[in-house]
């Protein structure tokens, strides 16, 4: 039997004033493309950070490739935050070399391929990039890592709608390494609809509906976009 890429067993995360996650149960098989779907404030980012090992759950069990998130799992997991955390004065290539210094799995050849796809110049200053270009840069950095598990928090935010579908398809197609597991959080399901193997609908910190996208289509006769409206409104 294969070890699941991610297991969440009754995971709760409390903050002083709120409960971000309220008992999430989940098992993700390796190699799947997973849609983590929910409105803002539903707990998507908290869940991704817990899987990435950047936050600890208040209670419950978390396993990533059979291990508790920590030093070992962080080598195999790439987390792309929604918030931009790069230095404005760096150039695109400077940033890639900088990231490589603490993530040795970053592949500069892959980065070159990605820069071309995203139409970014290596010599460009990060501070001079547009919002959309910064969003693309984040994908270049994240996807250049040879991580077994890729966590993308709202990767399409800031990217112009006509490019979204193209980038998403490349992301699960030619740009994805063989067997890589990808979890994408989004509240915009339309463009992402045909790329998910598995979907998790998150509402107020609970996964109210979850399953294989094709099975859900067969059982409900609805698209994921329609289910999003039905389950989360």
């Amino acid at each position, binding site marked *: 039997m294969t070890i699941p890429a991610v297991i969440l067993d009754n995971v709760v995360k409390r903050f002083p004033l709120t409960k971000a996650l309220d008992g999430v149960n989940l098992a993700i098989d390796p*190699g*799947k*493309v997973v849609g983590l779907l929910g409105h803002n404030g539903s707990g998507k980012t908290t869940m991704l950070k817990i899987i990435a090992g950047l936050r600890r759950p208040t209670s419950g069990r978390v396993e990533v490739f059979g291990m508790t998130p920590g030093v070992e799992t962080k080598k195999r997991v790439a987390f792309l935050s929604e918030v931009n955390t790069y230095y404005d004065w760096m150039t695109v290539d400077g940033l890639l070399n900088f990231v490589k210094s603490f993530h040795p799995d970053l592949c500069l050849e892959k980065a070159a391929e990605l820069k071309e796809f995203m139409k970014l110049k290596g010599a460009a200053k990060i501070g001079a990039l547009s919002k959309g270009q910064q969003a693309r840069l984040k994908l270049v950095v994240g996807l250049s890592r040879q991580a077994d598990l890729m966590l993308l928090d709202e990767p399409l935010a800031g990217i112009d709608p006509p490019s979204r*579908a193209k980038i998403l*398809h490349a992301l*699960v*197609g*030619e740009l994805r390494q063989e067997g890589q597991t990808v979890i994408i959080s989004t509240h915009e399901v339309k463009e992402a*609809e*045909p*790329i*998910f*193997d598995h979907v998790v609908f998150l509402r107020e910190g609970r996964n109210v509906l979850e399953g294989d996208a*094709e*099975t859900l*289509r*067969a059982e409900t*006769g*609805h*698209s*994921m*976009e*329609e289910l999003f409206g039905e389950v989360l409104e």
Partner: protein
Amino acid sequence: MQFEIDERQPIYRQIMDALIRQIARGHWPPGGKLPSIREVAEGVRVNPNTVARAFQELERTGLVETRRGEGTFVTIDTKVIKDCREETAREVWAEFLVKIRELGFTNEDVQRLAAELKEEGKR
């Protein structure tokens, strides 16, 4: 391969049905090589995992076989293709009958219509 997908129905099933139709009409001949999973995924604009699932299901029907490292090929057993073609035709016919009966057509009406359309086709 390119077609509009219906996102309310399983996508792998739609890809599988499209390939069956193409094999049935000889677009991919017996023994011929099917496009790769990646090619189909890019054409239909879906996740390659979904296409892989369509190929696996298709393999179960015996219509195609996958040779490791070489790709997926249409069977050389023409009887399997012929049977599948007939079976698919029956499904299409059954769907047609459901729709035409909703209009209140009897079997005799259907035969009359078929004869009329045949006459019109000759003209």
